[in-house]
């Protein structure tokens, strides 16, 4: 295939567009970093872009200080997020496989409805969830919030897994059948290994959604000790930071960014399969 040759002007324009896009994405992050590591006095109007000195005192105060939120809220968020990720992965795999493989006439319609519903913002689910949870005794419990997270992530998860399974040639399942494998063995040794990238994507998205969730736990988890860092951080700023201590807020937020980056770094290789399905079929 011939590469498209660009004139010098086109290359310059392309470069400019790329740089602008990168800046657009990175600047907010860089700004938060700049705010988080500067002394509190320098975070008031009029503000300088680059602080005169860098300090870790904000991070220290938020996480480890006498009034700080500590690491517990982050632990809570991790537990809720991971649990939700596991439940979402299982539910999505089962649902996605059914939709992909079985000729259900309503299947397409169901899929679209499910997907449309998943676009409802989490905040709009708060009131119904509150009523439901109060009535069923799930209010304030970790099981409750985890289920709420999973319910929010599963629709998209099913859609993604259905897509993943559609990509796995049904030939392979037929071959396994002919080879004498039952449904369980086929699933375990043929289908699931090939579906792993999809499952990881679904689990990762579910984890991130749960990890970042604010409005749901704000209403559904009244007990301070059980709150995730999103809620705890906001309460801390309100109480200790006079409602507008941006350096403290920025530090706490950055701390919330770290685990997500770690997750991505670890899984990045596995999310893109190398030398996978392409060789199953002649090739």
């Amino acid at each position: 295939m011939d590469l498209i040759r660009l004139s010098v002007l086109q290359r310059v324009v392309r470069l400019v567009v790329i740089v602008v896009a990168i800046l657009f994405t990175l600047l907010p992050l860089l700004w938060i970093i700049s705010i988080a590591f500067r002394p509190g006095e320098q975070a008031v109007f009029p503000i300088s872009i680059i602080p005169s000195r860098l300090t870790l005192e904000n991070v220290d105060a938020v996480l480890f200080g006498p009034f700080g939120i500590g690491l517990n809220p982050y632990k809570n968020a991790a537990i809720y997020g991971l649990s939700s990720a596991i439940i979402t992965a299982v539910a999505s795999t089962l649902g996605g496989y059914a939709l992909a493989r079985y000729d259900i006439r309503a299947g397409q319609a169901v899929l679209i409805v499910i997907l449309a519903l998943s676009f409802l913002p989490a905040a709009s689910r708060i009131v119904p969830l509150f009523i439901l949870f109060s009535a069923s005794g799930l209010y304030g419990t970790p099981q409750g919030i985890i289920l709420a997270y999973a319910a929010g992530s599963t629709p998209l998860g099913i859609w993604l897994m259905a897509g993943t399974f559609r990509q796995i040639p049904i030939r392979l399942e037929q071959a396994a059948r002919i080879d004498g494998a039952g449904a369980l063995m086929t699933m375990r040794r043929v289908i699931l290994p090939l579906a792993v990238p999809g499952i990881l994507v679904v689990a990762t998205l579910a984890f991130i959604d749960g990890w970042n969730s604010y409005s749901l736990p704000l209403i559904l988890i009244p007990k301070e000790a059980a709150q995730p860092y999103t809620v705890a951080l906001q309460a801390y700023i309100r109480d200790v930071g006079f409602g507008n201590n941006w350096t403290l807020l920025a530090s706490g937020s950055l701390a919330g960014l770290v685990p997500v980056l770690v997750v991505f770094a670890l899984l990045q290789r596995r999310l893109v399969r190398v030398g996978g399905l392409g060789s199953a079929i002649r090739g």
Partner: protein
Amino acid sequence: MRLDIEDLTVEYGSVGAVRGLDLTVGDGELVALVGPSGCGKTTTLGFITGFIHGRTGRILFDGVDVTGMAPQRRGIGYVFQDYAIYPHMTVRENIRFPLDAAKMERKKADKEVDEIAGLMGVGELLHRRPHQLSGGQRQRVALARALVKKPVVLLLDEPLSNLDAHLRVEVRAEIRRLQLDLKMTTVFVTHDQSEAMAIADRVAVMSDGKIVALTQPTTLYIRPPSLFAAQFIGSPGINIWTIDGPDAAIAHAFAKPLVGEGGGGLLVGVRPEHIEVGPGDLKATITLTEPLGRDFLVHLSAGLSSIRALVPASEGALLKAGADVGVRVDPDHLHLFDAETGRRVEIDAAGARHLDEMFGGGRGLAS
């Protein structure tokens, strides 16, 4: 193991993919199912496997009705056209998979794998993954996987279609040798008639969901039971002229020794390789010569009719387009078909016509 299919009918909506098909494959026999795309050959294979269910039809393994049996319990070896080997497993794991499914002890299974891999010539590749193999190698892995469980019947669905032309001839001979050594009952599906002819004990020609010819390859070539079979087998294709149509002159000229002045309602067929160019009563003009290497394909026209002749290169090189030549045919190489039904017609000594009995037969000359 002897395989019987009785009265199979498979419908896709209102379109009949297979209609009233009967087939018997003897123990250790290789039957080729050949026909154009959509004729129902893969569907028939699917029925043998158990993935496709017929509206009517039974299938018997050694006389036992297995129609309701699930695919995984039938003990079938299947090679797909696109191999369908597991991409995330090594070659060893691929070949061993059927044995794992049968819960064979690991050490014993690995020994079986080594044996079959050696037989198939992939012994050196056991640690590789499919994406590290060539097309021919993947195909052998697929074959090894099918054979490792010592199946009762081997089914192959156009296994050579994705290989290069050179490889195809080599691999088909290997498959045939293997099949003969193992005395494996085999059904081989292909759209390539020369492939079917080359390796089968019997060839089943299919068209539109039915078997229209079922006989040994040489018989199919020498005495095709129907017009369809005659046209399908043999390349370049047979010449066909209608006695009642615009080809009357040439058809009469060739067929006179057999039908005299009669011959109404008949089609006359002669294979290009049986047309002699040179001396002859019938005059024709050469329109084009195609050098094919060992032979020349010569196109001629006589009046409104066209003739294709296959001659050795030494002859063909001397022929020039535009030249007038004579053509003749040995009456032994004439084929006659009924214009209405397409069935083969034999003329006896008294001049009476007989329609061929083998047409549409399912049991044929089962061993």
